[in-house]
């Protein structure tokens, strides 16, 4: 690992990398602070722009946007009670009350500190875990990849803990849509003779539709119903936490960061989930859980450290196995392929200079994000004042543009619009959209590796299912899958017995 550092550091200190880093951090913050524009959208829009850039600078810029947007989302959550990205929804609960109490700048300062620590820890985790995992991935065959995909699919159970039926509905919908197109054996499925469907449903326009266009529709819909005027909190209070406060918060921040990294590594589960988990963690440990929601710093520190810790974590399976750890990472994968970088061991051997440059740059981006937030955070708050009626058409235009730019295929614009409607209806009836994306990514993957595994098994005159238990890593993965399947059940029993003893814990509000 360290023999590659010299080249990576040289690469990082080129003008193009430094510029990519700066643009990524500042641009990401603005994208994040604007409600409706998420990290996923920002990256999807910018991938075509990166084509002319050096690969290291391009990927670095996209990774910096990712972490910085997740942080930027907290600013609008605190000031206008509207999460800038889905990852900051949990931050609203205590951030906005803090701002109402006249501590808005302090809340942003706490968010900045927690986000930086969470991000830095995730970057260190990325630096330490990814290289050995990439080496290990050389021992992963088709059965292992198949089982990892299945493992990811079992997460639908935890993504949909509140309403299993709705979660499964979304999951099955994603799996069905994922079937469209050419199968691994070359036959076409559900294409109805339409040549445009042969390649399947493109992920980027589908995600833009599900997340951004549906968000625009929901905002437009809410406006018509309840013309409430959102009060923008005044900028006031001290920015940085006091020394005593910092000492009190740091164990919580560290714990939430570790949890965030872990959630990031899990395929498909992203910052939105991590922030709720972080908040619950803080509540469960607090001596005064009743104070949450009244504007206390723990309620900002926990979700903000967890959601930024997701970013580095989500890059781990992306760079080593080609499995995106979050929906944003799935879009980022498009950025890798456009520069001819295939995830896997080659990224850490042949392209080590680029990869380590991106990882070190990602670390730097998290620190730079804190400095920019500290120096310019109070001015950035202006972004959250952009009126929603202006924002809605802008985001609608950018969404359609982004879906066309990703492939230059006009059919993708229609896909974005159709998925926008689907996302709107699903979200309106409380069906979570995250399982759709998860299934859309992992369904075709499991399909492909099952086909390849069958070909490998053939030489031993075995079926695919007979072949799996012959591989030790596969057996470990099967045990993980079984655990993951029964974990929600187990945690339910534990928490219900806990609730009997200690009274009811408030369940997290669904995003």
């Amino acid at each position: 690992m360290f023999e590659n550092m010299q080249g990576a550091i040289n690469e990082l200190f080129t003008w193009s990398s430094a510029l990519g880093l700066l643009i990524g951090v500042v641009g990401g913050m603005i994208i994040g602070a604007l409600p409706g524009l998420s990290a996923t959208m920002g990256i999807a829009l910018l991938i075509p722009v990166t084509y002319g850039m050096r690969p290291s600078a391009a990927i670095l810029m996209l990774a910096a946007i990712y972490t910085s947007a997740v942080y930027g989302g907290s600013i609008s959550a605190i000031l206008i009670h509207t999460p800038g990205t889905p990852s900051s929804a949990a931050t609203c609960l205590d951030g906005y009350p803090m701002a109402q109490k006249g501590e808005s700048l302090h809340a942003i300062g706490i968010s900045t500190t927690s986000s930086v620590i969470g991000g830095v820890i995730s970057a260190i985790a990325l630096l330490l875990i990814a290289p050995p995992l990439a080496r290990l991935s050389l021992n992963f065959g088709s059965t292992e990849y198949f089982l990892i995909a299945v493992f990811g699919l079992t997460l639908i159970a935890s993504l949909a803990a509140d309403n299993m039926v709705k979660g499964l509905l979304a999951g099955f919908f994603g799996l069905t849509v994922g079937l469209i197109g050419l199968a691994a054996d070359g036959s076409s499925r559900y294409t109805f003779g339409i040549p445009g469907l042969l390649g399947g449903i493109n992920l980027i326009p589908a995600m833009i539709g599900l997340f951004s266009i549906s968000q625009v529709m929901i905002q437009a819909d809410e406006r018509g119903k309840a013309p409430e005027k959102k009060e923008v909190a005044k900028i006031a209070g001290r920015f940085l936490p006091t020394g005593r406060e910092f000492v009190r918060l740091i164990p919580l921040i560290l714990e939430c960061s570790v949890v965030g990294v872990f959630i990031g590594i899990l395929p498909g589960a992203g910052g939105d989930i991590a922030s709720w988990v972080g908040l619950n963690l803080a509540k469960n440990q607090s001596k005064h859980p009743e104070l949450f929601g009244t504007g206390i710093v723990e309620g900002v520190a926990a979700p903000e450290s967890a959601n930024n810790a997701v970013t580095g974590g989500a890059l781990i399976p992306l760079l080593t196995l080609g499995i995106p750890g979050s929906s944003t990472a799935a879009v980022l994968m498009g950025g890798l392929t456009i520069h001819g970088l295939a995830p896997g061991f080659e990224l850490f051997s042949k392209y080590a200079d680029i990869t380590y440059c991106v990882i070190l740059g990602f670390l730097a981006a998290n620190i730079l994000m804190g400095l920019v937030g500290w120096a310019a955070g109070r001015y950035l708050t202006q972004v959250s004042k952009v009126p929603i009626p202006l924002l809605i058409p802008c985001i609608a235009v950018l969404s359609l543009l982004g879906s066309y730019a990703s492939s230059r295929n006009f059919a993708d614009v229609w896909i974005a619009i159709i998925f926008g409607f689907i996302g709107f209806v699903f979200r309106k009836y409380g069906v979570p959209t995250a399982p759709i994306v998860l299934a859309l990514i992992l369904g075709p993957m499991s399909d492909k590796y099952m086909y390849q595994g069958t070909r490998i098994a053939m030489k031993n005159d075995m079926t695919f299912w007979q072949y799996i238990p012959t591989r030790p890593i596969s057996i470990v993965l099967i045990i993980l899958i079984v655990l993951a399947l029964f974990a929600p059940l187990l945690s339910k029993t534990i928490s219900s017995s806990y609730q009997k003893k200690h009274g009811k814990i408030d369940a997290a509000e669904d995003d």
Partner: protein
Amino acid sequence: MKKLVAILLSLAMVLSLAACGSKTPASTEAPKPGESTAAPQAAWPKGNIDIIVPFKAGGAMDLSARLTADYLKKYLNVEVTVQNVEGGANWVGYNQILAAKGDGYTLGFANYPGQVGGYLDPSKKNTVSYRDFTNIADIVHDPGIIVVREDSPYKTLQDLLDAAKGGKKLTISTGGGPGSDDDVLIRQINSRLKIDTLIPGGNENDGEAKNALLNKEADAQACNVSNYFKTYESTGQTDSVRVLAIFDANKQVLMPNAPLIDDLNIAELKGLYSSSDRGLVACKALDPAVLQIIVDALKKAQADPDFQKDAAEKGMGINMLFGDDFNKFIDGVESTLIELAPQIGWDVDASKYGK
């Protein structure tokens, strides 16, 4: 506040202008086949040229097209832009090439056997064939190879084939599913040796095929010279492999020491050649005068040492074929695929293609 809104709106506008500015390659009116446009232009080209690449940016196809675009630009003195049009298993792009005007300002890139497989496979319901394109020039010729890991028990191709003939089933990872050049090569070896023990891996791309070789799931990998030309000479690396054979008639500049199939004296496999080729095409109605200008420019590029050097650095073997030679080559690819169609599982009506 107002300033910020203005910045935001102008950003949105700039972005949309950027998108509109790039010429949309899709033309609304498809010219009738055989119809040639207008009188030959005096000085072509007068404007910029688009090359539609039906594949995503960054891949082998894209790189070949961009290299060609660079040198067309050099010799035609206009901007030549690569447009990646994805979707529909590459047929969104191919259909845009077919629907373009014959003025030569919209050209395209195609790969073989990929394009041929795309219309022979009846489930894809394509009614066109290579005959519906003006096939300008075959540019990149990337011969098929079979490689094994350095520690493989099979030291030569003969070793591998002996094991297969002895009834041992071997998985050969391939950079594509049924009908891809790697897959077809393995099927051809099977049918020439009258065995069925070599199993094509059906991997999605060369990267996955390589992973399957390195993680020991596959016994060998069928791929192309470009996949390994860089690591070929070096040893001791984790990804070092041994090239068992190049399935081509000619020595390869990029792999000068690897054995050619004909030199291995394996009677059944004499003359078995395989390659992935990438060439410049256009719609059927391409103006013959324009065609001549493009061919002349390509011939100049071919003689340009810089072009040769650039191509070699990217691992592209250049073997240009023009006009009828190119058509004959594609026809050969088509015949091979039709022959193997029952094996691949395609119900092909050979008479449709005069075969």
